[in-house]
């Protein structure tokens, strides 16, 4: 699902000349086997001077603990008068540990319209021996690895000779960039340090460019000759998130620059977003025109419905249930949807296709909707750094004036004047509902958490702009769990739990139900419950409202477990939080270390547990955990245990109000998590009542 525009993405840890996998997935194609690029049959070529010089670079001090250090990574993009571009990359890496070999497996993507001109590689061993990669050192593979993907895109990978610690591997590739794209993104940060990097842009005479930067101060290019520009960066530190839990996506933190040429090269952030939206609009022009069949179906679905929400619900539900996710892409198909008529007939498509059919059906019943290009990795799309970065297409639906249905929660206002020249109160025009038709489990009106608080680029002609998707209120997500149990004198417990799930909690479970058979669901549930109840005797489960997205997803679980309460001398220890946990383990924060990155909380929501446990006759509560009540702004937690008439009552409420918090809030996060952790681990101490101590214990 990863993708960008023309991104050189170093996230994977390998030098990559990344092609831009298409929206929503991968790339694929309905065409006979495209010819492989010119056979390598590598002639003998000595290691070129640029590689020899790069290999002389000393390993910087900050790379001592890294698996590898990138000594050089330079790109040259040459654009012709038709704005078609060819990209050359020169890359040299020193392997420092066996693990560092991963950085030496240079790769090149190519496709029907992205021809790979050449791919050469050399190794300079630590002992000074030189090797040149030969045919046997390269392998090609199709990228259609997924069962739901057909793609003509391919990947050539180097298995370099002599790639041992201390060696320097140098690679040079040249690839034609896709002729329909006038943008490349230079991802100049990697999980290992980079000593020297550059991007050169050779434009045709009179050519112009625009650039946008993210996570790094903008650099002015040096104009080496007429229309030949060069940006240089030295000593870029590593961005290594491997052991950082709950961090935003790598791509959301890594520094990058996007450069546009041709018609895309306009100046000013708002103007650049507009240009990108116009490009998308041109690509999809007429794709979403409703055919008579589509219009008839949309009208049939909405016949006699009482209101706007119901109209939307009928159509979105139809697409969610009847258009299977399957991706067929070749070349521009990575960006361009199929025709609505084909999607409707086949009953399958990718995210662009589902959006296209939705726009067409809504259009047929008088509702306007738009393509909204987003990324499921929150933070990858940066409002201040316009680019075609993004991996997903969803829909923005125009809400008519006066419609204030409370079920339409995922709403956002679109600016009348994206450049913000007018005052904020006058600068709101369309009221939009954000909806993801590829998400088959979230009802219209809501969006799942990975989209909340993220940005997207809406394609609305001259009014195209970047939008922030809303963070939904805590009431829109979470689980309410009610349990009734009976504790035996032997510590065994039996009972039933009723759950009601909304928002992400429902979406995830519904997805699980779709992708699993009953046996797998049973096993997964049993596995999860047995973490809390080691001697679980799982009696069964029943879901309700699985297909009815408008209703909360219901789940009833029946269970028993031997030895749930543990004897300790004369006491019986009972953990009243019988199942589930709200602990969000972030080791570096919990250990009190300084946090450098935001903490991703997950989905906003409200989780309420209410358990009643009938105690065995003769037992009373001798000791119980103190009640907890804590509110840190972005989240709150409260919990209490009481006992009355031989029944223990456990209540807890956990509320999350945001999707992510800044690193500065780490101390509050730690305080909250410690309170939750201690509370969840705590037990009630039961004591067999004797005549002597009758009448003692809290809550009586």
């Amino acid at each position: 699902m990863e993708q960008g525009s023309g991104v050189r993405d170093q996230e994977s840890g390998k030098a990559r000349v990344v092609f831009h996998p298409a929206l929503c997935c991968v790339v694929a194609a309905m065409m006979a086997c495209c010819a492989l690029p010119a056979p390598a049959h590598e002639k003998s070529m000595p290691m070129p001077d640029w590689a020899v010089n790069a290999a002389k670079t000393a390993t910087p001090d900050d790379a001592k603990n890294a698996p590898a250090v990138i000594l050089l990574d330079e790109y040259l993009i040459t654009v012709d008068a038709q704005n078609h571009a060819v990209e050359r990359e020169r890359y040299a890496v020193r392997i420092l540990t066996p693990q560092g070999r991963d950085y030496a497996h240079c790769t090149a993507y190519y496709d029907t319209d992205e021809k790979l001109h050449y791919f050469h590689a050399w190794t300079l061993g630590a002992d000074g021996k030189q090797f040149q990669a030969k045919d046997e050192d390269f392998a090609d593979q199709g990228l259609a690895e997924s069962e739901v993907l057909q793609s003509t895109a391919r990947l050539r990978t180097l298995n370099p000779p002599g790639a041992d610690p201390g060696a320097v591997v140098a690679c040079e590739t040249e690839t034609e960039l896709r002729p329909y794209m006038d943008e490349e993104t230079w991802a100049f940060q990697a999980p290992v340090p980079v000593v020297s990097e550059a991007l050169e842009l050779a434009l045709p005479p009179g050519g112009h460019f625009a650039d946008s930067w993210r996570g790094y101060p903008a650099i002015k290019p040096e104009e080496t000759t007429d229309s030949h520009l060069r940006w240089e960066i030295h000593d870029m530190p590593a961005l290594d998130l491997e052991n950082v839990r709950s961090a935003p996506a790598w791509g959301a933190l890594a520094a990058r620059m996007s450069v546009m040429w041709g018609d895309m090269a306009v100046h000013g952030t708002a103007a650049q977003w507009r240009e990108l939206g116009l490009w998308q609009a041109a690509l999809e022009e007429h794709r979403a025109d409703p055919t008579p069949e589509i219009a008839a179906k949309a009208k049939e679905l909405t016949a006699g419905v009482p209101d706007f929400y119901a109209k939307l619900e009928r159509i979105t539900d139809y697409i969610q249930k009847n258009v299977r996710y399957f991706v067929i892409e070749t070349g521009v198909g990575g960006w361009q949807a199929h025709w609505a008529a084909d999607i409707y007939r086949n009953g399958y498509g990718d995210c662009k296709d589902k959006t296209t059919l939705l726009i067409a059906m809504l259009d047929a019943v008088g509702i306007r909707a738009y393509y909204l290009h987003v990324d499921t990795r929150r933070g990858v799309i940066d409002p201040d750094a316009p680019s075609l970065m993004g991996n997903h297409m969803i829909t923005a639906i125009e809400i008519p004036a006066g419609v204030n249905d409370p079920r339409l929660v995922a709403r956002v206002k679109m600016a009348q004047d994206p450049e913000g020249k007018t005052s904020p109160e006058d600068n709101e025009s369309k009221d939009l509902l954000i909806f993801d038709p590829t998400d088959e489990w979230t009802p219209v009106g809501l969006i799942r958490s990975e989209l909340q608080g993220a940005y997207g680029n809406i394609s609305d002609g001259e009014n195209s702009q970047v939008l922030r998707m809303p963070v939904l209120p805590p009431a829109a997500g979470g689980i309410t769990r009610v349990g009734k149990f009976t504790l035996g004198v032997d510590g065994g417990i039996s009972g039933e739990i009723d759950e009601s799930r909304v928002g992400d909690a429902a979406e995830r479970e519904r997805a699980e139900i779709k992708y699993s058979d009953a046996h797998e669901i049973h096993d997964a549930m049993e596995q999860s419950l047995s973490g809390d109840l080691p001697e679980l005797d799982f009696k069964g489960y029943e879901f309700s409202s699985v297909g009815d997205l408008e209703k909360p997803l219901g789940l009833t679980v029946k269970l028993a477990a031997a030895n749930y309460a543990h004897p300790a001398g004369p006491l019986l220890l009972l953990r009243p939080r019988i199942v589930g946990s709200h602990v969000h383990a972030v080791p570096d924060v919990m250990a009190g270390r300084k946090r450098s990155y935001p903490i991703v909380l997950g989905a906003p929501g409200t989780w309420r547990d209410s358990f009643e446990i009938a105690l065995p006759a003769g037992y009373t509560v001798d000791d119980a955990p103190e009640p907890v009540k804590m509110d840190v702004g972005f989240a709150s937690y409260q919990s209490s245990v009481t006992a009355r008439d031989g029944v223990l009552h456990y209540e807890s409420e956990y509320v999350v109000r945001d999707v992510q918090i800044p690193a500065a809030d780490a101390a509050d996060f730690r305080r909250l998590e410690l309170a939750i952790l201690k509370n969840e681990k705590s037990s009630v101490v039961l004591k067999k009542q004797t005549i002597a101590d009758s009448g003692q214990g809290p809550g009586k």
Partner: protein
Amino acid sequence: MRARLICCLPLLVFTFASSTAYGQFHDPTKEELAMTSDPKAPDAAAVYLDYEEKTDDPLHYYSVYARIKVLAEKGKELATVNIPYLRGETKINDIHGRTIHPDGTVVPLEGKPADLLQSKSGDEQIGKRVFTLPSVTVGSILEYEYQIDYDDNIYSSPQWWIQQPYFVHHAQYSFMPFPAFQKGNAAMTSRYLEDPKTERVLNHMMWAQLLPSGVKMVNDAQGRFTLELTDVPAIPREEHMPPIQSTLYRVLFYYTWAASEGDYWTEEAKSWSKEVDHFAEPSDAVKKAVAGIVAPTDSDLVKAQKLYAAVQALDNTDFSREKGKEELKVLGLRQAKRAEDTWTQKSGSKEDIARLYLAMLRAAGIPAYAMKVVNRNRGVLDPTYLNFGQLDDEIVLATIAGKEMDLDPGEKMCPFGTLDWIHAGTGGIRQDEKGVGLTFTPELKYADNTTLRTADVYLDAQGQVKARVTYVMTGQNAMGWRQTALIYGKEEMQKRFDRMLQEAMPGGVEAHVDHFLGLDDPGTNLLAIVNAEGALGAATEKRLLLPGFFFEARGHVDFVNEVKRQTPVDMLYPDRVVDQVTYHLPDGVSVEGAPKNDQILWPHRALLTVKVAQTPGQVVVTRDFAQGFTAVKADEYADLRGFYQKVGASDQQAMVLVTTAEQKGN
């Protein structure tokens, strides 16, 4: 004309259809259309109503036909079909398919399925055709067929893997071999097969099979093999399964020169043995090397140990990196043909190194033989399957002080005197003084694979702890970490160890490795020194509650999920984990309740022993878990589960601490 044997053809092909496609499609019955669940497969998301594979060498085609009922959302995944094929020698000519809705509406597959590259390496290209059936709903019947045509000179050897991911109501397989291999045609014709490696003529067609009880394959008068089955269970999915292919129903056809099982293994083993002896000849160069390593006064055991250490120190390319032909050329190296090549080049594959060790032992005058075994992580030896390719790796059997020892010099970091678990309790062929033969290696013992975890846990009155933890590992447990360090580097190994610790520590406690000792020396224990701290205890109004077993507080217990078992339980190797945790209590706190001394026994299989010792200011909890078995049969599963459940319950015991004042008050 000389034909070639293309053994890989069946492996590349999963499903196909004939050019007369629609004529062979079946009209569904009313019951099939109305079906919403299947009593024979109660939880299934789909079932195969029919599945058919045909291979016809005289007509040069292989075809697949499938009819599938979708019963739940997940079953829709079967609407997409990937057909891998070998480009150049095979061609997919016909693909037809249709979706039938529960109301009987038929939606045909239209368009040309994509022809995509799957992989290309050297001259070999594997392509794949992909199609997805249209308009699929829960309740639909999916029906498709395809046909792969292959060149005239390709002999196929079908491999019928009979179990599918879903239950199959009716399955049919057929194979028509070339006339030379049909019944009554054992005599040579103008066509014959040749083993490309040995150039032996392959004039017998055989098959290895594992079929449900009562099911028999038929070989008819025309020479056609057919197999028909009903109610085939889905491929099992269970925890701790042995290599899955060893448990599945199957018929594997192949061509061989041998007329019988005995002939085959005897001849192949002899040929292998000759090759080994040639490589491992104790030449002058090898003798000279040995003389530089051992002293004449060394005992055989010491000699064997010194030589073992010497070959283990070589670059083992299975653990570092295999060099390509061009690279070897630049380095002035060559593919080792003799043991001295490996020694001179200080580098070799694990097989080269095992054979070098064999040569060195022989040069030192120690009787030693080679054995080629199945990697137990990959498969189980089937002697009825006359395929030498079943055997993976070589080990060395040396007689020292009159006792034969199994040694694994090719397995980097494997301690002297033991085997990697993948080579223990597995079948293979061996050399001995009488010749060669099939045999099995011994199983490992739990005492050889130990982990001792100790923790000194210092507790404060609020339940916060600081702990100094050590892990002392031997045998397989140490070898695994050492190999990780070798393959991925020490930093990466440390990261992985930290991740393992995080899974093992009680919730709220963070642990990180401080350093390792003995990481590079397989002859010693591997020690990990770990620092841990965090919130271990949970306070109530009057008490502090702690997990009774520091290392088992996560509460994960194996084998709770499956009530019944279809396949054997494979634990890979026996082992023993001893935990010794000393809780240092804060002043004014005493123990009100602690885990009980206990012993849980599964006779001849496993034992848990718990001992608790209290002294003023501290409690020592010792937990000793010995799993003395490698694998158990499915019919012993109830006993195994019962034992593990008791262990799980024991591990849940808590420690209750109370302030001395509070206790007095009570």
